[in-house]
């Protein structure tokens, strides 16, 4: 399985992501340049954390117009698995690939610590190998990680089972409904604020992030066998 990790000006988790996918998990993993308008030879795309375009205007607002994002949108529309982590999640929301937005943390604090995430849906490309109700130990590090959406969007996400991860014991940042991660309707696009790529090696204190990446492999294998996406 081959991963592409998009490198925007200002991305800073791209190398950690490549290390997690390639060095730790043994997948093929290559950087994708923001100025390219084609995705070739990748089975899944990761939009990494960081401060793309300096967070100018709004987090993720400018990255969505880069040439690579047009290719990522086409890839997602064709069912390709796309995972947005932190700034990547913000970009997916700005691009309209996921609903809602991320705003400044309630207490104006940059939150940098481990959180417990409850798995709420396993019907996605990045959670199909996990078990509903499982608690994962994964770090967060963000200043604008407070998920916000209007009432009808929230109600729709809840009723359609599109909340994938929730902060156990309450959101550290004011996120509505304690939402840490959500998915697109078909389940192939997932965005979350916590950083699974920082939780893949015992040396880092946690390995629960591995399951998200391994899920993608299962998802692709399942699709190849024509089983389609799980209901």
């Amino acid at each position, binding site marked *: 399985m081959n991963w592409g990790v998009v490198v925007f000006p200002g991305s800073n988790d791209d190398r950690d992501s490549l290390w997690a996918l390639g060095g730790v998990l043994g997948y093929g993993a290559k950087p994708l340049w923001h100025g390219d308008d084609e995705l070739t030879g990748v089975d899944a795309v990761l939009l990494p954390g960081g401060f793309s375009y300096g967070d100018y205007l709004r987090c993720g607002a400018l990255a969505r117009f880069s040439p690579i994002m047009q290719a990522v949108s086409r890839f997602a529309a064709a069912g390709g698995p796309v995972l947005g982590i932190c700034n990547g999640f913000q970009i997916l*929301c700005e691009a309209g690939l996921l609903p809602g937005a991320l705003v400044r943390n309630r207490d104006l604090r940059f939150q940098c610590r481990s959180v417990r995430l409850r798995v709420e849906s396993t019907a996605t490309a990045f959670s199909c190998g996990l078990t509903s109700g499982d608690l994962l130990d994964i770090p967060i590090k963000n200043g604008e990680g407070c998920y916000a959406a209007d009432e009808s969007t929230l109600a729709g996400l809840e009723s359609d089972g599109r909340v994938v991860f929730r902060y156990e014991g309450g959101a550290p940042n004011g996120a509505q409904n304690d939402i840490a991660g959500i998915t697109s309707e078909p389940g192939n696009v997932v965005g979350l604020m916590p950083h699974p790529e920082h939780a893949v090696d015992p040396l880092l204190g946690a390995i629960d992030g591995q399951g998200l990446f391994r899920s993608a492999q299962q998802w692709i294998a399942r699709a190849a066998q024509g089983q389609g996406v799980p209901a």
Partner: protein
Amino acid sequence: MSLIAKVYVTPKPAILDPQGKAVATSLATLGYGEVEDVRLGKLIEIRLEGDDRATAEERVEEMCRRLLANEVIEEFSFDLVEESVR
């Protein structure tokens, strides 16, 4: 002649605005007890070629919707003013 669009982008009332809250608290600390609420947003100034106000209004509105504001969390308004002679 040029037109200047002054675009104001502010957080929607329903959205948490912790920056505005923090500023309100500081103003209260300074003794401005009459401060009831502060919303903190952005002012974006755009100089536009030409002087056709109708066209400018239409174009700036489009710029706001497509990029300058995120209508999920923000609202916008703008004024068009003639650039003063420098």
